[in-house]
């Protein structure tokens, strides 16, 4: 019994099982949890995760939040009053561990033989003379100057440390409420991981609520204008809806969380899942027009019998390509690969079983005679002319493609991977503006923490820290390097006169260091010291604040620290959130290669099996290689970076793009088998199946175009690049593949 008979025989079962499955899928949808924290998806074995955990054991796992105030002069009375009130309010909130602003800053100095410890701002100045005196005092104080006040006094910072266990939304609400409680004219910018996660989380929700209805509407309209019949619109439309429900439901079913790149999943279903249903709708209308007397069940059976093989092959290749993502190192990419592949498999099954089952039960639709003639219109004339050109100048066409590829290849020199995940939010967003301010007016927005273990009071260890500090300060882009050695030197400046040997010097004895530290813990807040040294004085932290435009700059600084570490026997632990960025970057980059390789190999094997020829695998892989290569090259030219989202493009475009090639091979082979020569076969192929491929590709590209409305620049870039990549696959399948076939006359087509 063929599939078509099976479908007719068990149609009610098929319909009921499908609907029950979809209804069951709705239940877990309510349990989807959004997790925008990219770091949480990294494998626990990653160096940054391991090292940050180790550093956290000694120095806590608090996260930093920055509130930046921008005004002409932050020392004006109004601004200082506002900062003081906000600092006071936030500092009594238990959700914030440490609050540091100009008002917490201490002025520790040597004055007429005394060590003086005062708050930096003892009184908010109300006249110009006092203001300038305060400005001078701040300039001389490296505990606050360029730390919480910028060099030009246009920016002031409140630095907050927040407990990771507190909900991001709650933290941000507290900050926003406090800022509103004390309004002012200053521009406010906020930065920090809790803020990024909170903003991303809100935007993920917004994206789903906006993109999905728009996408469904677009799909509905495309289907309506293509078929102008409700049944032909609704059946593929339901396949899309069903596959979205199933793929999204799998996320909580598998115990996973919805990440930022999860936004792509429903839109991808929207773009891909309708394909198979569209073939059924189109074939049904064709048969209805050509054989008007056929019964509904017979129509359904014939449609099913005709389409089972090509639709299954197309579905399989797409699934295999997307499963390439399973080889990705980044967990959300792997999860996306799995749920999308299952979602597409479901769409394929529903198209193969549910659609003909429903069609067999429906009354016969009206006849669309106008749809029968496919030889008129822009697309047919374009594909027809392409066929003419290919058969006339195959070598010239291959040459043009090679030239284009060479041009794109040059762009690979400018191809970059993203140094961080800042592009999650738009450049105009407060988060990114704050980063620019930190880079341009403070020590930088990036941070490495280096933990040293040993006897922290040992002058030799402190001398080593001092060496790290001095060396790292020389690296371009490094803003500030702070460690216990700088604190000891600062204390030495307040306890010694500038003419003394001990001035700006680490004491020569362990006792000297111990006494300095004891004095510091007596005269200040122990929290100040505990940022740099643990309770037992066995671990100490050196922090490097810097700015970097590229991952290369970050890696170079990391290599410098690692190089210094190899020269001594201290074996420091390197961590910090920038190391996490480096790990995310590496996992994106390597994951890209792995998933690309897996997708290529799988598609090569599949093509070779389908056409029983390695040559088919090789030639069929050309459009994919061309599209991937050119997309990366064009990314270089366009300045688009490889990031957590754009790294998904190649697997998805390979999975989708290979369909076009299969259709072209299949049709040329069919034409050749029917006695046509290569020239006529290629022209006929482009004239017939060429139109279908163009319409199919256009609907997929239009589906992905919905992503250009996303709130995330990363996803907007993805939309542009996936459309570009699919377009390249399309052109390659319709022009380059026929040209190569015409030129090389591969044997597998003639079998």
């Amino acid at each position, binding site marked *: 019994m063929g599939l078509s008979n099976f479908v007719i025989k068990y149609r009610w079962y098929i319909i009921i099982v499908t609907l029950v499955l979809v209804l069951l899928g709705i239940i877990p949808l309510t349990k989807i949890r959004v997790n925008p924290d990219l770091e949480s998806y990294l494998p626990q074995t990653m160096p940054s995760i391991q090292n940050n955990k180790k550093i956290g054991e000694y120095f806590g796992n608090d996260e930093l939040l920055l509130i930046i105030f921008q005004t002409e002069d932050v020392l004006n009375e109004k601004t200082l009053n506002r900062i003081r009130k906000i600092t*006071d309010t936030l*500092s*009594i*909130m*238990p959700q914030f561990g440490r609050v540091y602003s100009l008002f917490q800053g*201490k002025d520790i100095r040597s*004055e007429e*033989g*005394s*060590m*003086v*410890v*005062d*708050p930096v701002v*003892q009184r908010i100045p109300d006249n110009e003379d006092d203001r300038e005196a305060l400005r001078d005092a701040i300039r001389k104080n490296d505990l606050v100057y360029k730390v919480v006040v910028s060099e030009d006094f246009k920016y002031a910072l409140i630095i907050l440390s927040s407990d990771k266990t507190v909900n991001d939304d709650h933290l941000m609400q507290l900050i926003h409420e406090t800022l509103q409680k004390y309004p002012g004219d200053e521009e406010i910018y906020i930065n920090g991981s809790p803020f990024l996660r909170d903003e991303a989380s809100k935007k993920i929700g917004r994206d789903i609520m906006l993109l999905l209805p728009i996408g469904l509407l677009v799909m509905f309209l495309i289907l309506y204008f293509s078929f102008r019949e409700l049944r032909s619109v609704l059946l593929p439309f339901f396949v899309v809806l069903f596959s979205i429900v199933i793929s999204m439901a799998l996320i909580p079913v598998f115990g996973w969380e919805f990440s930022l790149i999860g936004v792509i999943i429903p839109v991808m279903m929207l773009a891909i899942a309708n394909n198979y249903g569209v073939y059924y709708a189109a074939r049904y209308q064709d048969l209805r027009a050509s054989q008007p007397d056929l019964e509904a069940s017979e129509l359904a059976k014939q449609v099913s019998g005709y389409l089972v093989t090509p639709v299954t092959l197309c579905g399989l290749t797409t699934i295999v390509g997307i499963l390439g993502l399973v080889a990705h190192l980044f967990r959300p990419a792997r999860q996306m690969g799995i749920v999308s592949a299952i979602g597409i498999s479901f769409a394929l099954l529903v198209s193969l079983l549910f659609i003909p089952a429903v069609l067999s039960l429906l009354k016969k639709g009206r006849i669309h005679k106008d749809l029968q003639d496919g030889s008129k219109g822009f697309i047919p004339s374009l594909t027809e002319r392409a066929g003419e050109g290919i058969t006339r100048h195959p070598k010239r066409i291959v040459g043009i493609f090679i030239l284009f590829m060479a041009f794109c290849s040059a762009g690979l020199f400018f191809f970059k991977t993203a140094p961080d995940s800042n592009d999650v939010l738009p450049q105009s967003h407060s988060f990114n503006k704050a980063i620019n301010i930190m880079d341009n007016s403070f020590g930088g927005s990036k941070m490495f923490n280096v933990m040293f273990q040993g006897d922290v*009071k040992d002058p030799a260890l402190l001398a080593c820290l001092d060496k790290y500090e001095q060396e790292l300060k020389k690296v371009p882009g490094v803003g500030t390097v702070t460690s216990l050695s700088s604190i000891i030197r600062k204390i030495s400046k307040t*306890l*010694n006169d500038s003419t003394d040997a*001990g001035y700006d010097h680490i*004491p020569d*004895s*362990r*006792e*000297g*260091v*111990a*006494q*300095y530290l*004891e*004095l510091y*813990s*007596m*005269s*200040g*807040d*122990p929290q100040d010291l505990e940022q740099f040294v643990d*309770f*037992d004085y066995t671990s100490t932290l050196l922090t490097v604040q810097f700015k970097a435009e590229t991952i290369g700059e970050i890696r170079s600084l990391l290599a410098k620290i690692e190089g210094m570490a190899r020269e001594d026997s201290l074996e420091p632990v390197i961590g910090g959130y920038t190391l996490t960025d480096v790990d995310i970057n590496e996992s994106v980059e390597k994951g890209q290669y792995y998933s690309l390789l897996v997708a290529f190999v799988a598609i090569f094997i599949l093509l070779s099996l389908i056409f029983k020829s390695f040559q088919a695998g090789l030639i069929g892989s050309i459009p994919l290689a061309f599209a991937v290569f050119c997309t990366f090259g064009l990314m270089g030219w366009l300045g688009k970076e490889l990031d957590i989202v754009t790294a998904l493009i190649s697997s998805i475009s390979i999975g989708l793009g290979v369909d076009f090639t299969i259709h072209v091979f299949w049709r040329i082979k069919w034409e050749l088998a029917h006695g046509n020569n290569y020239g006529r076969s290629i022209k006929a192929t482009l004239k017939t199946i060429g139109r279908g491929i163009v319409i199919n590709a256009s609907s997929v590209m239009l589906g992905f175009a919905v992503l250009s409305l996303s709130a995330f620049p990363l996803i907007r870039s993805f939309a542009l690049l996936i459309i570009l990549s699919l377009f390249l696959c399309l052109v390659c399948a319709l022009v380059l593949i026929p040209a190569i076939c015409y030129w090389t006359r591969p044997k597998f087509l003639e079998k």
Partner: protein
Amino acid sequence: MKLLLKSLFTGLLLLSGTPGLFGQSAAEISSKSREVVDLGTMQMDFTIYIRDSRGSERVRQLTMISRIFNDVNKTLVRFTAPSDVQGTTLLIFDNKDTEDDMWIYMPALKKVRRIISSERGKSFMGTEFTNADMSKPNQADFNYSLLGTADHEGKACWKVQSEGKDQTINKANGFSRTISYIDKANYLCYKVEYYDLSGNLQRILTSHDYKNVTANKYFSYRTVMENVQNKRVSEMVINKIDTGTKFQEDIFSPNALQQ
């Protein structure tokens, strides 16, 4: 910095008070509590244990002598252990109406340095005690109220709350209110709960091992301050108290620190 170690014990009692009970006002109860533990001139050897949330411990041994000269309470605190800070000495003049004077002698530096600090409400020597805890509070800065009576380890106590009169006072002291448990029978304070500036319980001080030092004068030989928020505990254990020696004023001079 109004650092006056011995007043830790008396100062804590001053925070307590009651608006009239059996004819006694809060001020009277506080005053009696203070009198009960006010030893006047004394020399004391004590150990400070500072423990973090993971159980790591720092131990400091100190010797302190104190005496009032012309209304200025002069205190000398010398580290006797650990060895790396041994000999480090602090001299504090707790002036009545002006900022405190403070000098430090560090043996490694071999010189005396004056420290001028306006910081208050901060940690005392890295412990969970604050400098404000060590100072004599100004009774006029607080409102007192009796919350009732409570049993503390079998002893009937007054449960007395004191609240700072304004935010400035609260901020200076590092707490918004305290609740003290004062023995009805002998005015000894056994426990003080400190609430942070947002009103949450932050620290709990318990006084143990009260001993009769001289006639009608008592002293707690073990005082524990537990920070319930950061899970740190600091403990002061008195090893020896001597109230008989009358120290000469010249030993309380910056020049004498190096000797």
